[in-house]
């Protein structure tokens, strides 16, 4: 086996995320490609959460259903995984946790190992050590990572954790000789970075010049707020947890008005409260960047699960007609580059820009080459005002130069009412029409900067798959071996060019793949191009697509 899927399963609060965090780093710094994704319940203790870690000789970036090694860390930890456990699955752990399941069972007394090392609390270190040994990770990398993790807790705790890990390691090694695990190491991987989608959005925001963040905590978007809060003092970013999403969005718009570069991070339900302020941004022509991590709705829905169900929400949110931009990063690199770009585009066009992610993307990790900052530029579009400055000058491209108060000789006067060039309330019908048209012209100008969709796979395709956002890597892996199949992936879903029709016209069959119940993007494509995508592979149970599931469903359609 060169590509192994490990699943850890246990209760909330047992430290599975810590295991994931340490283990992925140990593996990566041993030169192995890793991917990790979690699924968790909306609770702080109890229940059942799982983490899948894939380890491979080549890059891995997507979720598979297959479980090669399962480590249950508690009672009932296998119950929800029944359908994914086969006779080939190696189930490793305490006797009482693995009794009830299928698969090849191997008892490893993690608790006993932990107690031997000094405390039952070291059980996770024993498990990390075991899996490191099983996969042939470097022993000293393991020691360093454990040390790094527990350094603050003092020497004794570090030492005993390492002891538990090394004992686990030894047992993992013994087992690896019995089964066929050959994951080749690549020293270049050690130099790569390992982070999740939320961190990529956060780093992208900082690289975009973000210096003001106001948000209200809401899963799964909070990790971006936390990331920026952790770095606020380092970069001089204002981070404020607002009383509600309404305040958050209004604050961020206020920050842009005064010349800051502001971000809100939220999820569907939180964004629902921001809708009026989105419309405000449309009317006063304020830039604003909104990171929206989707989760299944309606209402509270499934707070900790994933879906691509909020495309229509961000596309149509806000009363009245005004332009906007919607980016839908397909993977962690795109989450970084598009969030960075979002700030430049918001500033350039004075429109709301969305970075639409989801729980799957923000919570997934994999190793990747360091982001290249050499090509990253912060484009500022603020003008110094002259004495006779007017905020809403009618221009050919629809963009009126944007000044900020206190910078220059003029006054910056913005108004949520329909306004004239001065920003003053008007009820003049001609002025109204001119202003509507000016704002819409901006929407046309934006099309110069569209991020084109990517065609991946067989150039001479007969079947064309359409996807957007976080399904990119899963679809890519699913069609690797398929002939006559290509994927057209959109990391910008609005605006899009009508000319994308040319891709569909070459295909015998076009299939939309979306993580929602109605095919929201397929419907949008029809609206823009007139092309109706009849075949749709949709998923809306709260989980992301798996590679196997897509392989099967795509094959059925073909």
């Amino acid at each position, binding site marked *: 086996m060169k590509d192994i899927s490990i699943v850890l399963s246990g209760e909330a609060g047992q430290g599975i995320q810590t295991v994931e965090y340490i283990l992925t780093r140990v593996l990566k*710094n041993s030169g192995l490609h890793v991917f990790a994704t979690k699924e968790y319940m909306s609770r702080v203790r109890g229940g059942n959460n799982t983490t899948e870690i894939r380890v491979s000789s080549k890059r891995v970036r997507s979720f598979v259903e297959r479980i090669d090694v399962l480590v249950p860390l508690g009672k009932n930890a296998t119950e929800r995984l029944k359908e994914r456990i086969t006779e080939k699955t190696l189930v490793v752990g305490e006797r009482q946790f693995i009794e009830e399941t299928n698969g090849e069972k191997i008892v490893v007394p993690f608790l006993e190992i932990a107690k031997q090392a000094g405390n039952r609390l070291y059980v996770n270190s024993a498990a990390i050590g075991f899996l490191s040994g099983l996969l042939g990770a470097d022993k000293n990398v393991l020691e360093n*990572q454990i040390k790094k993790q527990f350094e603050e807790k003092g020497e004794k705790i570090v030492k005993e954790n390492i002891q538990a890990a090394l004992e686990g390691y030894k047992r993992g090694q013994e087992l690896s000789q019995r089964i066929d695990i050959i994951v080749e190491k690549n020293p270049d991987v050690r*130099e790569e*970075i*390992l*982070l999740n989608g939320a961190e990529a959005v956060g*780093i992208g925001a*900082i*690289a975009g*010049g973000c*210096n*003001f963040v106001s948000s209200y905590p809401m899963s799964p978007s909070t990790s971006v707020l936390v990331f920026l809060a952790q*770095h606020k003092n*380092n*970069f*001089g970013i*204002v981070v404020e947890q*607002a*009383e509600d999403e*309404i*305040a*958050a969005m*209004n*604050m*961020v*718009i*206020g*920050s842009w*008005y*005064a*010349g*800051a*570069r*502001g971000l809100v991070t939220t999820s569907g339900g939180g964004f629902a409260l921001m809708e009026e*302020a989105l419309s*405000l941004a449309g009317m*006063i022509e304020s830039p604003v960047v909104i990171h929206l991590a989707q989760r299944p709705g309606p209402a509270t829905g499934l707070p900790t699960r994933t879906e691509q169900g909020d495309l229509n929400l961000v596309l149509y949110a806000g009363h009245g007609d005004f332009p906007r931009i919607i980016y839908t990063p397909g993977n962690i690199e795109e989450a970084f580059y598009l969030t960075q770009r979002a700030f430049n585009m918001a500033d350039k066009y004075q429109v709301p820009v969305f970075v639409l992610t989801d729980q799957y993307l923000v919570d997934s990790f994999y190793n990747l080459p360091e*982001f290249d*900052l050499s090509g*990253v530029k*912060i484009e500022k579009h603020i003008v110094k005002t002259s*004495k006779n400055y007017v905020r809403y000058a009618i221009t050919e491209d629809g963009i009126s130069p944007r000044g*900020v*108060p*206190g*910078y*220059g*000789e*003029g*006054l*910056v*006067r*913005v*108004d*949520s*009412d329909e306004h004239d060039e*001065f*920003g*003053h*309330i008007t009820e003049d019908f001609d002025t109204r029409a001119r202003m509507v048209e000016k704002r819409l012209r901006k929407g046309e100008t934006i099309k110069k900067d569209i991020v084109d969709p990517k065609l991946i796979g067989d150039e001479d395709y007969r079947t064309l798959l359409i996807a957007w956002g976080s399904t990119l890597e899963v679809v890519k892996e699913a069609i690797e071996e398929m002939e006559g199949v290509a994927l057209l992936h959109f990391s910008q879903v609005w605006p899009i060019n009508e000319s994308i029709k040319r891709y569909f016209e070459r295909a015998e069959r076009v299939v939309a793949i979306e993580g929602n119940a109605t095919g929201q993007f397929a419907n949008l494509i029809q609206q823009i191009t007139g092309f109706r995508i009849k075949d749709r592979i949709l998923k809306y149970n709260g989980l992301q697509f798996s590679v196997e599931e897509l392989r099967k469903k795509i094959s059925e359609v073909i």
Partner: protein
Amino acid sequence: MKLTDYINQEIAWCPGCGNFGIRTALMKTLEEMNVDPRNVVIVSGIGQAAKMPQYIGVNMFNGLHGRALPVATAIKTANPNLLVIAESGDGCMYGEGGNHFIHTIRRNPDIVNIVHNNQIYGLTKGQASPTSLKGFKTPVQVDGVILEPFNPLAVAIALDASFVARTFIGDIEFTKEILKEAIKHKGYALVDIFQPCVTFNKLNTYEWYKENTYYLKNHDPTDRELAFKRATETEKFPLGIFYINKNKETFEEAARKGNRTPLYEYEVDFNKLKKVIESKRS
């Protein structure tokens, strides 16, 4: 640059409206304090009171109903060198924006919050507002208001707001002097201004306010308990500065650690960012 430059010349208020007096008081205040209009931002919500920045030649953010305070807080934080005034009516500030009113006081940004309190909804044609008195009849509250009126001053003092005052626009000079104090004060300053709505509110008229208010004399504004007591008086409503707490850090000082550089001058330290990215190796 004069305060009458670049303004919307079409003033949309009814003849005799208390808003005219507030405009006069505010313009006089700014003129007498020699404030450069280019460094002033008036943030307002929606309603007749919220049209104020349309008619004064300063920077203007005429935003959404109830939402002036979060916007004002952010503007002050993004550029602490600006004089930021959040101004709107009682419905906007205390009703639609009630939650922001509470939490802005907790934040304590150095802004002035002027509330045109006419105890009625004017622009929507005469419904009850949060400060309408019990029993007050309107086309909607046909049996009279059955709710207790919202007491903005008592709420503000309970939240330890750093400056709490009330005036009546029948006395423009007095209002002006209070506004000066509010502007000079470092921290959140609430100035609730009784202002007759001559069109819809036939109860709380100029005469009514004259009869039902009195000026605070020999009042110690640093005594919070006393201030709270005065704020809960309803037989006659006191006018003046109820409460001042000078020992509070402002939001922008805390959020920006004393840095007053406008954020439009902000530059990203890419070397630091590179280090953050590199830290993701292990």
